[in-house]
Protein backbone atom coordinates (compact mmCIF):
# COMPACT_ATOMS: atom_id res chain seq x y z
CA UNK A 1 0.00 0.00 0.00
CA UNK A 2 1.11 3.57 -0.53
CA UNK A 3 1.16 6.31 2.08
CA UNK A 4 0.98 9.89 0.81
CA UNK A 5 1.85 12.88 2.92
CA UNK A 6 1.21 16.13 1.10
CA UNK A 7 1.85 19.60 2.41
CA UNK A 8 2.03 22.87 0.43
CA UNK A 9 5.76 22.49 -0.23
CA UNK A 10 6.30 18.87 0.56
CA UNK A 11 5.18 15.62 -0.98
CA UNK A 12 6.23 12.31 0.50
CA UNK A 13 5.33 8.86 -0.71
CA UNK A 14 6.04 5.64 1.15
CA UNK A 15 5.43 2.09 0.07
CA UNK A 16 4.33 -0.01 3.05
CA UNK A 17 3.48 -3.69 3.36
CA UNK A 18 -0.22 -4.43 3.66
CA UNK A 19 0.31 -6.58 6.76
CA UNK A 20 0.88 -3.37 8.71
CA UNK A 21 -2.90 -3.04 8.68
CA UNK A 22 -2.86 -5.64 11.44
CA UNK A 23 -1.02 -3.12 13.56
CA UNK A 24 -3.38 -2.67 16.47
CA UNK A 25 -1.90 0.72 17.40
CA UNK A 26 -2.87 2.17 14.03
CA UNK A 27 -6.51 1.12 14.35
CA UNK A 28 -6.71 2.32 17.93
CA UNK A 29 -5.46 5.71 16.77
CA UNK A 30 -7.99 5.83 13.95
CA UNK A 31 -10.97 5.01 16.17
CA UNK A 32 -9.61 6.73 19.30
CA UNK A 33 -9.91 3.50 21.18
CA UNK A 34 -8.09 3.59 24.49
CA UNK A 35 -10.17 1.16 26.44
CA UNK A 36 -8.29 -2.03 27.22
CA UNK A 37 -11.54 -3.92 27.64
CA UNK A 38 -12.12 -3.78 23.89
CA UNK A 39 -8.54 -4.57 22.93
CA UNK A 40 -9.24 -8.27 22.69
CA UNK A 41 -12.20 -7.61 20.37
CA UNK A 42 -10.10 -5.39 18.14
CA UNK A 43 -7.30 -7.96 18.07
CA UNK A 44 -9.78 -10.64 16.94
CA UNK A 45 -11.30 -8.35 14.33
CA UNK A 46 -8.07 -7.24 12.66
CA UNK A 47 -7.53 -10.44 10.61
CA UNK A 48 -10.97 -9.90 9.07
CA UNK A 49 -10.03 -6.34 8.19
CA UNK A 50 -6.89 -7.50 6.42
CA UNK A 51 -8.69 -10.36 4.68
CA UNK A 52 -11.52 -8.11 3.51
CA UNK A 53 -9.16 -5.45 2.21
CA UNK A 54 -7.01 -7.97 0.35
CA UNK A 55 -10.14 -9.60 -1.12
CA UNK A 56 -11.49 -6.26 -2.34
CA UNK A 57 -8.18 -5.12 -3.79
CA UNK A 58 -7.62 -8.38 -5.64
CA UNK A 59 -11.07 -8.36 -7.19
CA UNK A 60 -11.82 -4.67 -7.69
CA UNK A 61 -8.50 -2.90 -7.66
CA UNK A 62 -6.91 -0.15 -5.63
CA UNK A 63 -8.84 2.17 -3.35
CA UNK A 64 -8.13 4.86 -0.77
CA UNK A 65 -8.44 3.34 2.70
CA UNK A 66 -7.83 6.62 4.44
CA UNK A 67 -8.02 10.21 3.27
CA UNK A 68 -7.30 12.92 5.80
CA UNK A 69 -7.15 16.66 5.22
CA UNK A 70 -6.33 18.93 8.10
CA UNK A 71 -7.25 22.57 8.40
CA UNK A 72 -3.67 23.63 7.75
CA UNK A 73 -3.73 21.97 4.34
CA UNK A 74 -1.84 18.78 5.18
CA UNK A 75 -3.18 15.74 3.37
CA UNK A 76 -2.53 12.16 4.38
CA UNK A 77 -3.76 9.30 2.24
CA UNK A 78 -3.36 5.56 2.35
CA UNK A 79 -3.95 3.83 -0.95
CA UNK A 80 -4.24 0.07 -0.85
Amino acid at each position, binding site marked *: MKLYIIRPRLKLYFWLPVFLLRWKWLWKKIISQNNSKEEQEIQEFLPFVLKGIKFYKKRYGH*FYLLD*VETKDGTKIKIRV
Partner: protein
Amino acid sequence: MIETFGSRLQRLRKNLNMTQDEVAQRMNVSAQAVSKWENDLSAPDISTLPSLADLFHISLDELLGREVPTAEFVPAGQRKDINSMLIKIIFDSADGDKVRVNLPLAIIKICLESGSTLPKIDGNDLLNKIDFEKIFTLVEQGVIGELVTVESSSDGINMRIIVE
Protein backbone atom coordinates in the same frame (compact mmCIF):
# COMPACT_ATOMS: atom_id res chain seq x y z
CA MET B 1 -39.07 29.30 -7.01
CA ILE B 2 -35.90 27.73 -8.38
CA GLU B 3 -32.89 28.44 -6.22
CA THR B 4 -29.97 29.97 -8.12
CA PHE B 5 -26.38 28.98 -7.46
CA GLY B 6 -25.74 32.32 -5.79
CA SER B 7 -28.73 32.14 -3.47
CA ARG B 8 -27.82 28.56 -2.58
CA LEU B 9 -24.30 29.66 -1.74
CA GLN B 10 -25.66 32.41 0.47
CA ARG B 11 -28.01 30.01 2.23
CA LEU B 12 -25.21 27.51 2.86
CA ARG B 13 -22.95 30.26 4.18
CA LYS B 14 -25.60 31.58 6.55
CA ASN B 15 -26.40 28.07 7.78
CA LEU B 16 -22.85 27.88 9.07
CA ASN B 17 -22.98 31.44 10.48
CA MET B 18 -20.11 32.49 8.25
CA THR B 19 -19.49 35.90 6.76
CA GLN B 20 -18.51 36.50 3.15
CA ASP B 21 -15.07 37.49 4.44
CA GLU B 22 -14.66 34.17 6.18
CA VAL B 23 -15.65 32.24 3.07
CA ALA B 24 -13.29 34.37 1.01
CA GLN B 25 -10.44 33.69 3.40
CA ARG B 26 -11.01 29.94 3.36
CA MET B 27 -11.27 29.90 -0.43
CA ASN B 28 -8.31 32.24 -1.00
CA VAL B 29 -10.39 34.73 -2.92
CA SER B 30 -11.54 38.26 -2.26
CA ALA B 31 -14.70 39.09 -0.39
CA GLN B 32 -15.87 40.88 -3.54
CA ALA B 33 -15.60 37.61 -5.43
CA VAL B 34 -17.81 35.83 -2.90
CA SER B 35 -20.31 38.69 -3.10
CA LYS B 36 -20.41 38.36 -6.88
CA TRP B 37 -20.97 34.61 -6.60
CA GLU B 38 -23.88 35.12 -4.23
CA ASN B 39 -25.45 37.72 -6.50
CA ASP B 40 -25.01 35.49 -9.55
CA LEU B 41 -22.76 38.06 -11.20
CA SER B 42 -19.98 35.53 -11.57
CA ALA B 43 -19.24 31.94 -10.67
CA PRO B 44 -16.31 30.27 -8.90
CA ASP B 45 -13.63 28.62 -10.97
CA ILE B 46 -14.55 25.00 -11.62
CA SER B 47 -11.39 23.79 -9.88
CA THR B 48 -12.50 25.39 -6.62
CA LEU B 49 -15.92 23.73 -6.53
CA PRO B 50 -14.75 20.64 -4.58
CA SER B 51 -13.16 22.88 -1.94
CA LEU B 52 -16.33 24.95 -1.75
CA ALA B 53 -18.42 21.80 -1.29
CA ASP B 54 -16.07 20.61 1.45
CA LEU B 55 -16.27 24.00 3.18
CA PHE B 56 -20.05 23.59 3.49
CA HIS B 57 -19.84 19.87 4.32
CA ILE B 58 -21.88 18.87 1.29
CA SER B 59 -21.35 16.97 -1.94
CA LEU B 60 -20.66 18.60 -5.29
CA ASP B 61 -24.11 17.49 -6.46
CA GLU B 62 -25.74 19.33 -3.60
CA LEU B 63 -23.64 22.44 -4.22
CA LEU B 64 -24.78 22.49 -7.83
CA GLY B 65 -28.38 22.02 -6.84
CA ARG B 66 -28.79 18.42 -7.83
CA GLU B 67 -31.14 16.50 -5.58
CA VAL B 68 -29.23 13.71 -3.89
CA PRO B 69 -31.25 11.05 -2.11
CA THR B 70 -29.88 10.44 1.31
CA ALA B 71 -30.74 6.76 1.12
CA GLU B 72 -32.41 4.78 -1.60
CA PHE B 73 -33.78 1.33 -2.11
CA VAL B 74 -32.48 -0.62 -5.07
CA PRO B 75 -34.67 -3.45 -6.40
CA ALA B 76 -33.18 -6.93 -6.33
CA GLY B 77 -32.36 -7.16 -10.03
CA GLN B 78 -30.44 -3.87 -10.08
CA ARG B 79 -28.20 -4.23 -7.05
CA LYS B 80 -24.43 -4.24 -7.19
CA ASP B 81 -22.50 -7.19 -5.83
CA ILE B 82 -22.23 -6.50 -2.11
CA ASN B 83 -18.56 -7.53 -2.22
CA SER B 84 -17.84 -4.62 -4.54
CA MET B 85 -19.32 -2.02 -2.22
CA LEU B 86 -17.53 0.28 0.15
CA ILE B 87 -18.71 1.69 3.43
CA LYS B 88 -17.47 5.26 3.69
CA ILE B 89 -17.19 6.83 7.13
CA ILE B 90 -16.79 10.58 6.83
CA PHE B 91 -15.86 12.91 9.67
CA ASP B 92 -15.99 16.68 9.16
CA SER B 93 -14.94 18.86 12.06
CA ALA B 94 -16.14 22.41 12.55
CA ASP B 95 -12.62 23.79 12.26
CA GLY B 96 -11.94 22.24 8.87
CA ASP B 97 -10.39 18.83 9.51
CA LYS B 98 -11.75 16.08 7.30
CA VAL B 99 -11.29 12.34 7.65
CA ARG B 100 -12.55 9.77 5.21
CA VAL B 101 -12.25 6.05 5.93
CA ASN B 102 -13.29 3.66 3.17
CA LEU B 103 -13.77 0.03 4.14
CA PRO B 104 -14.88 -2.78 1.85
CA LEU B 105 -18.22 -4.15 2.97
CA ALA B 106 -16.58 -7.54 2.50
CA ILE B 107 -14.88 -7.02 5.87
CA ILE B 108 -18.19 -7.06 7.70
CA LYS B 109 -19.47 -9.91 5.56
CA ILE B 110 -16.40 -12.09 6.22
CA CYS B 111 -16.56 -11.34 9.94
CA LEU B 112 -20.25 -12.20 10.23
CA GLU B 113 -19.93 -15.34 8.10
CA SER B 114 -17.18 -16.60 10.40
CA GLY B 115 -19.54 -16.28 13.35
CA SER B 116 -17.61 -13.44 14.97
CA THR B 117 -19.08 -10.21 16.24
CA LEU B 118 -17.97 -6.74 15.30
CA PRO B 119 -16.08 -4.88 18.05
CA LYS B 120 -17.81 -2.08 19.88
CA ILE B 121 -16.06 1.23 19.41
CA ASP B 122 -16.78 2.76 22.79
CA GLY B 123 -13.81 5.14 22.62
CA ASN B 124 -15.43 7.25 19.92
CA ASP B 125 -18.58 9.18 20.86
CA LEU B 126 -19.96 9.06 17.33
CA LEU B 127 -18.98 5.57 16.23
CA ASN B 128 -20.21 3.92 19.44
CA LYS B 129 -23.75 4.77 18.35
CA ILE B 130 -23.44 2.83 15.11
CA ASP B 131 -24.52 -0.76 14.65
CA PHE B 132 -22.58 -1.94 11.62
CA GLU B 133 -24.35 -5.29 11.57
CA LYS B 134 -27.66 -3.53 11.07
CA ILE B 135 -26.15 -1.38 8.36
CA PHE B 136 -24.96 -4.52 6.62
CA THR B 137 -28.43 -6.04 6.90
CA LEU B 138 -29.93 -2.92 5.33
CA VAL B 139 -27.48 -3.09 2.45
CA GLU B 140 -28.25 -6.78 1.91
CA GLN B 141 -31.88 -5.79 1.60
CA GLY B 142 -31.09 -3.20 -1.05
CA VAL B 143 -30.68 0.07 0.83
CA ILE B 144 -27.68 2.19 -0.18
CA GLY B 145 -26.57 5.80 -0.03
CA GLU B 146 -26.16 7.99 3.00
CA LEU B 147 -27.50 5.77 5.76
CA VAL B 148 -26.27 7.58 8.84
CA THR B 149 -25.78 11.23 9.74
CA VAL B 150 -24.69 12.16 13.23
CA GLU B 151 -23.69 15.55 14.54
CA SER B 152 -21.92 15.87 17.83
CA SER B 153 -23.15 18.95 19.65
CA SER B 154 -20.18 19.00 22.00
CA ASP B 155 -17.39 19.34 19.45
CA GLY B 156 -19.17 20.20 16.20
CA ILE B 157 -18.07 17.07 14.33
CA ASN B 158 -20.36 15.73 11.64
CA MET B 159 -20.21 12.04 10.83
CA ARG B 160 -21.82 10.44 7.84
CA ILE B 161 -21.85 6.83 6.73
CA ILE B 162 -22.41 6.23 3.04
CA VAL B 163 -22.60 2.86 1.36
CA GLU B 164 -22.02 2.71 -2.38
